């Protein structure tokens, strides 16, 4: 963290709950999302596989092509001939998959044929005229099916359905087992769920026939990587591909890998004389948009009788469905912070990614961390029960202590700051935990079952992309960084262009606050363009909105670029005022002498020299007032299997939940929900609050409602919002939120991750509360979601959910 006085000349805006600047425009319907872009387009519809696993013996598109209004058709085999296979990020086994199915289909919803027509209705009608002959193959749906010796192979070239199998050990696990008084073991199943942004995927591709290049408008969340992937897959140079990201309606990770569809659109655009547009329907999104993988986790805690945990073993098997690009990444991210908030000195992890016939998986809010904290925080309760300890006490006995900060985990992750015991203490007192416990006992006598759940979670941010080295050799991307361009215009106003993109996080407002305090100008004089244009935006391979990196490297780039502009203005002002730069200060949109504020030149006057009267500039100063900066967080370690960090900042929180469970109907009702959250210095507490609560609600949905269910044939049963159950306002608790601020020493402003956090702690907290409520019936919660049916069945049979 830098001395804030070196960064800011005023402290009027940063840290205040400044109202989001972006909202009015979007709420009034004045946003410009992809579908709003006013272009004369052909419209695209996809024919998708109706089988989970089948060989394609025939695709006849002739009738569709003959339909009036159909402009162009591409089918999987044709696409495969023109493209390279999908690049894999983490898996180590060969698995060849193209952006469209070519020889066989591997999941229901996999694209087979794309049709461009005069309008979407015709395109959809044309799909009904396409004749596809399938030869159905045996289907692999669940993890145990995929692991059978005689399991049908989904990728024959892999020789198995296991595409990644890695083992990592740090610290002395053998010693941990030897010294342990007992080993607490459990086996958990976490289901498949996802975020479902309001705006589904959307894109327009235009082929410039003159120079054989492409312009694409897409709500892409990770333009840095997408640009590379699209160009490599199409086999075109980077300078033939321009990506523009307009407004985007929600991301949560789900728009990080939309690039395979951009490839398809580009191939279609080549055949059409106007841009081609595809706007994904909700059904398409739920079928084959992207999910978080379901997984199977075995966990062991060798521990002492006093509750001290000596080591942690996990065997994590991830059901990654059929999308080789992102398969395998969840396990590694779970692994990175597997010790959670606890001082555990030895870890062993076995990470397995299996391919099945479920839909694609991609990064979803928290990427594995909600699962890891669910598993770990459930284990803390289970271990406490085993040892006759209070769940609060066992956590206090194992927390990393504030004096240990910065704390390095056995594998090399660095927890930079935080006070975990105090965070729990605060949450207990805010929730009236002891009072709730008393109530619980009294209510039980009346036949009412209240449960209390605690969860202490680590919420990492800023991915060090180099961690894929752990399984794949030297990675293509390492570290993390972002770019920003900051300029002062003719009027002395500030304009910002980012390498990153925004899906509704309020980046522009926060950037405005930071610049207003850096330059002492009113936020109204700062404009941030949240859109991206790969031709002009300062993007890197890391560019995008993911892993809560905004508060760190994105703002780092803004600060560095603003400093450059500021220094240049001061240098010009020094020349204009005849004062040494050291004698000058920024004040209210001007640079003035610290001794005599009357001696002052406004930003506008300085800009006038920089842009127009350039002959009056001091020697050696370039015209213009536009600066670019790239900022990297230097805490990212270089790849090594022995010592590496996956994330660079680490927020933390404690959730305390009280629920009542109706034993007859299985319904769970919230009585209390308290969060104490520490994301370092809060830059905009209003935005932090909104993100934390929204994210928490996602976790509550994951714990109780949301699930992608497949039948034994691999047919998805939750392909609409009637069956894929997002939480609705009714039935949700009022969330009470309190904060601690442990500034991060390794980000410029002391800020840390926010956005994923609530989704990480909430799943475990809700599950712990439900199990506590069910404790008179000795029911154990080891799978999700906790549905009324499972609760009633478990109570009846006194067993596991």
């Amino acid at each position, binding site marked *: 963290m830098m001395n804030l006085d070196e960064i800011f000349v005023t402290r009027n805006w940063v840290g205040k709950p400044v109202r989001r600047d972006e909202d009015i425009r979007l709420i009034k319907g004045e946003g410009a999302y992809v579908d709003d872009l006013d272009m004369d387009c052909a419209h695209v519809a996809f024919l998708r596989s109706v089988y989970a696993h089948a060989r394609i013996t025939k695709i006849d598109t002739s009738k569709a092509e003959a339909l009036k209004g159909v402009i162009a058709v591409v089918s999987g085999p044709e696409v495969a001939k023109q493209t390279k296979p999908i690049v894999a990020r983490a898996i180590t086994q060969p698995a060849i998959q193209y952006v469209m199915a070519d020889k066989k289909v591997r999941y229901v919803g996999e694209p087979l044929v794309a049709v461009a027509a005069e309008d979407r209705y015709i395109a959809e009608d044309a799909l009904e005229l396409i004749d596809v002959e399938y030869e159905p193959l045996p289907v692999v749906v669940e993890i145990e099916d995929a692991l059978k010796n005689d399991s049908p192979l989904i990728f024959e070239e892999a020789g198995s359905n296991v595409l990644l199998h890695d083992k990592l050990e740090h610290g002395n696990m053998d010693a941990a087992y030897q010294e342990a008084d007992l080993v607490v073991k459990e086996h958990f199943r976490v289901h498949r769920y996802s975020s479902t942004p309001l705006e589904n995927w959307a894109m327009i591709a235009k082929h410039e026939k003159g120079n054989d290049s492409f312009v694409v408008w897409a709500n892409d969340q990770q333009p840095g990587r997408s640009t590379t992937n699209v160009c490599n897959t199409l086999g075109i140079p980077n300078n033939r591909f321009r990506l523009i990201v307009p407004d985007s309606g929600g991301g949560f990770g789900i728009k990080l890998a939309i690039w395979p569809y951009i490839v398809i659109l580009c191939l279609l655009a080549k055949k059409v004389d106007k841009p081609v547009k595809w706007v994904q329907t909700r059904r398409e999104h739920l079928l084959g948009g992207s999910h978080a993988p379901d997984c199977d986790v075995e966990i062991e805690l060798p521990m002492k009788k006093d509750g001290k945990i000596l080591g942690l073993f996990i065997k994590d098997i991830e059901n990654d469905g059929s999308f080789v690009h992102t398969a395998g990444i969840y396990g590694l991210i779970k692994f990175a912070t597997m010790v959670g908030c606890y001082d555990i000195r030895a870890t062993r992890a076995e990470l397995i990614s299996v391919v099945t016939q479920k839909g694609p998986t991609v990064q979803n809010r928290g990427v594995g961390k909600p699962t890891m904290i669910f598993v770990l925080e459930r284990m803390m309760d289970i271990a406490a029960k085993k040892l006759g300890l209070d769940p609060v006490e066992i956590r206090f006995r194992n927390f990393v202590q504030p004096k240990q900060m910065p704390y390095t985990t056995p594998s090399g992750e660095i927890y930079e700051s935080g006070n975990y015991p105090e965070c729990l203490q605060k949450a207990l007192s805010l929730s009236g935990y002891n009072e709730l416990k008393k109530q619980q006992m009294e209510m039980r006598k009346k036949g009412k079952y209240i449960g209390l759940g605690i969860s202490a979670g680590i919420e990492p941010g800023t991915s060090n992309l180099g961690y894929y080295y752990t399984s794949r050799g030297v990675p293509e991307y390492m570290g993390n960084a972002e770019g920003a361009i900051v300029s002062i215009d003719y009027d002395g106003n500030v304009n910002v262009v980012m390498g990153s993109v925004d899906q509704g996080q309020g980046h522009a407002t926060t950037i405005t606050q930071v610049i207003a305090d850096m330059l002492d100008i009113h936020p109204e004089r700062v404009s941030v363009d949240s859109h991206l244009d790969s031709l002009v935006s300062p993007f890197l391979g890391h560019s995008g909105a993911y892993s809560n990196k905004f508060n760190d490297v994105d703002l780092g780039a803004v600060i560095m670029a603003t400093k450059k502009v500021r220094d240049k203005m001061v240098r010009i002002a020094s020349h204009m005022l005849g004062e040494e730069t050291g004698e000058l200060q920024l004040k209210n949109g001007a640079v003035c002498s610290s001794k005599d504020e009357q001696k002052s030149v406004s930003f506008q006057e300085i800009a006038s020299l920089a842009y127009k009267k350039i002959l009056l500039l001091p020697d050696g100063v370039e015209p213009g007032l536009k600066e670019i900066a790239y900022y990297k967080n230097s805490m990212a370690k270089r790849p090594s299997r022995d010592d590496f960090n996956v994330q660079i900042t680490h927020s933390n929180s404690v959730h305390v939940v009280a629920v009542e469970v109706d034993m007859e109907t299985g319904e769970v009702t919230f009585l209390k929900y308290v969060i104490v959250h520490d994301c370092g210095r809060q830059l905009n507490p209003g935005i932090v609050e909104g993100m934390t609560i929204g994210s928490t609600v996602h976790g509550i949905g994951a714990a109780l409602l949301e699930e992608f269910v497949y039948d034994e044939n691999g047919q998805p049963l939750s392909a609409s919002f*009637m069956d894929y*159950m997002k939480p609705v306002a009714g039935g949700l608790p009022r969330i009470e939120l309190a904060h601690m601020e442990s500034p991060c020493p390794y980000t410029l402003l002391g800020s840390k991750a926010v956005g994923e956090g609530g989704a990480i702690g909430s799943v475990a907290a809700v599950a712990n509360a439900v199990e506590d409520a069910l404790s008179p019936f000795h029911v154990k919660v080891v799978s999700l979601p906790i549905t009324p049916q499972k609760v009633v069945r478990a109570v009846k049979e006194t067993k596991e959910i």
Partner: protein
Amino acid sequence: MIPSKFEYFAPASLSEAVSLLSSYQEEAKPLAGGQSLISLLKLRLASLNYLVDLAGIAELNYIREESAGPSGTISIGALTTYAQIKESELLQSKCPLLPQTASVVGDVQVRNRGTLGGSLAHADPAGDMPAAILALKAELKVAGPKGERWIQADDFFLGMMETALSPDEILSEIRVPVLPDHKTIYRKAARRPSDFAMVGIALCLKAGDDQTCEEISIGVTGVTDKPYRAEETEKRLQGKKLEPKIIEEAASAIVQGVDVMENMHASSDFRSHLARVYVSRAIAAACIRS
């Protein structure tokens, strides 16, 4: 929404609508509030050649008392929305079961658009309003090419989204009795407040001062392919004192004779269990209120 192609009609009167339906028969469908049919068209799960939009038929939107007094009735136009039913002071005071049921249908948007007639004619096996209509023993007025006819609620629901309406008929009015001496209640098990019922129980109960069940009717939804009257449960309670044991024994018959549905949210066992719990609780709650 990207449905297949259809021709759209917006008749201004009921007779015009009926004549369109009788010209096109099975190829046409009437559209009321669009809360079910539009979804089916959007997903191309239903396709039709002619859509007859009833929204412009003002004569089908009303709530009025037909005759006052203990044997009075209230008539509700088929295009009356859930929101209008929920807000109706007349219904709140004289037929509270309908506003209570309407208030838990879907969410605010659904209630603002969806109609009572649409819900009944669509006959979703998990719709809320059909249960209430059955419990109230409502009468349904139907307009067809040969004029109008009345159908008893008990005779209206035939199967999965299947009713006694023929393709050229339109449900035009729902007539419910005013039952000042009855307690009514609708209880619904749903994963989320806005969901279709996993089980929905509508109850109409007249109990004597000594808690003897003088008259009872129970409409059940969400359990099988159609909403139904729980006749066996009613029979076991009729004339009996409403004591826990008797209620429990009667509740155990709630799914008697029906083929209980199964889906990802509830197995048939669990659904049967919920139906028993919910009907017991509904009766107990009605007793407390009497």
